[in-house]
């Protein structure tokens, strides 16, 4: 079953007089439970694609169906609700709130969604245990290592049990060893049924994905699920 269906997606940025087509006539279908790496040089449109898939950005034209529902026409607040319930983000620079502890950072999406504190605490405790962060619950981000920070960020991305995880260069700020740990963690989530889309420059990491999409000038240059060409 299709989780994501993009049809004729255009995204144009106006830079001075010039119109830059960040995405040009993009068609893409990603099924439930897939593990996709989006690759390509800088400026190829892969970040724009990720923002679009995450409902952080709107296309100029085309339709985006998420779980069969057209989400391009939703209001900003309705899109926020979809992000809250169905999409988890993992960023290159972690994006943890510096004044909140690890546990509070993980609980943030539940707090924003208005889930009562008692349930939050139970779920955060399970997540901390699941990600090996039990001893770091009360640490602030500046007291955590890079790998631990990204684990907190991944715990936060999964705490609302989303259908889709969007990871933007999740290992970009980590050394190879910690990076591998983080990728293993993401892959284990994917093994649990969550659809995983990773944007990366890293060929080795891209190679681990079951499906690779290479972008070039706002178009899909190569998609490993189709015949090469």
């Amino acid at each position, binding site marked *: 079953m299709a989780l994501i269906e993009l049809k004729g997606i255009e995204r144009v940025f106006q830079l001075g007089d010039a119109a830059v087509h960040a995405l040009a006539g993009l068609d893409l279908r990603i099924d439930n439970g897939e593990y996709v790496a989006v690759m390509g040089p800088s400026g190829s449109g892969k970040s724009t694609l990720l923002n679009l898939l995450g409902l952080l950005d709107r296309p100029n034209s085309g339709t985006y169906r998420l779980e069969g529902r057209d989400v391009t026409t939703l209001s900003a607040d309705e899109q926020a609700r979809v992000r809250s319930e169905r999409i988890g983000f993992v960023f290159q620079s972690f994006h943890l709130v510096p*004044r909140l502890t690890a546990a509070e950072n993980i609980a943030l999406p539940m*707090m924003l969604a*208005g889930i009562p504190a008692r349930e939050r605490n139970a779920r955060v405790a399970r997540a901390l245990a699941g990600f090996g962060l039990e001893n770091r619950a009360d640490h602030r981000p500046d007291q955590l290592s890079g790998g631990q920070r990204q684990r907190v960020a991944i715990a936060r991305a999964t705490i609302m049990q989303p259908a889709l995880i969007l990871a933007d260069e999740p290992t970009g700020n980590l050394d190879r060893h910690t990076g591998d740990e983080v990728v293993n963690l993401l892959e284990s989530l994917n093994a649990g049924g969550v659809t995983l889309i990773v944007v990366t420059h890293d060929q080795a990491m891209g190679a681990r994905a079951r499906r690779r999409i290479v972008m070039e000038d706002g178009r899909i240059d190569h998609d490993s699920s189709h015949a090469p060409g």
Partner: protein
Amino acid sequence: MRLADTLRFARDAAAGYPLRTALSVLAMSIGVAAVVILTALGDGARRYVVGQFASIGTNLVIVLPGRSGTGGFNPANAITTTPRDLTIDDAAALLRAAGVRRVAPLAVGTSEISFGGRLREVMVAGSVSDFLPIRNFELVQGSGLPDDDWSRGAPVAVIGATIRDELFGGEPAVGKLVRVGDRRLRVVGVLKPVGQGLGLNTDELVIVPVALAQAMFNSNTLFRILIEATSREAIPEVKERALEILRQRHRGEEDVTVITQDAILATFDKLLGTLTLGVAGIAAISLAVAGILVMNVMLVAVTQRTGEIGLLKALGAPARTIRLAFLTEAAMLSTVGALLGYLLGESGAFALRQFFPVFPAYPPDWAVIAGLGTALVTGLLFGVMPARRAARLDPVQALMKH
């Protein structure tokens, strides 16, 4: 987001930037403290003056020679323009008017008092026995002026406490003979010390019978006639009657001015009340400034926390939640500042009262409520713009700033 979570989030955010938070709280508290202290000063002045005026007597109606203000054309004025003097007989005539409880004629002059080689200049008030109760004067020793015919000037005097101290030191004064001007008077009473009151220091006053004073100063005119009405309600009627009686006695010429203590009180009350209001208005400007500072602080917060706002949006926070979080933070800053300022202002007013015990520096309730209210409203009002700006941020742009 739940209310408790919103409050906690805003609190943590404010606590996360202690210097900025402390500065805006300080600004707000100074604004509120200014309102509280300045209105305490203004209202203290009002209470002080009104209290002083109230202490000169109860239900007083005062007659002054000469006419002030305009009363239209009076044929009598065309013939004689010199006002007639007020006389002791005029005062005696007022005794018969309905609603009058007591009347005291008052003649005033300066003279010298001496005893046992010590000499000083004094203010001499010539009056009658009812003068003391009308002016609420109390005696510490002896008795007041004799209650006899007003035209008889018995050679007696009631002296103020300071004069007693200066002339007699620790010795008893009552019964002693003192020299006032070129007359020898027997001291019959000593006034209770009350201190300075509206220009006339009663502690340095010598009170003698009115006829004696007129003889000493070689004049038959009065400085004032003090009338005490039977009740507050009787005051306007007494004023009318006094004017009428004196006009008749002065051949139809209205050559006196009658003022009532109530009118003076009301005037001062209104005047100083307006002053307090004006001072409060000036202080309120500092509140507006504090509000603008809170806005600045929140705008800086939005800029500084752009990445965090982008994150909150990515995590599914609707615009309303972000608006509310920032608005709550602004409201918190101004609430804490307002409460702190209130405490600061109250302790400032307390300190004022400690240093100047005669000055009742209490902030009026309306000023406290208005000050706190203005602080909260400006804090919220100036918090709206930054909060809206935060909520409107584009999440993609915001996330890139980290």
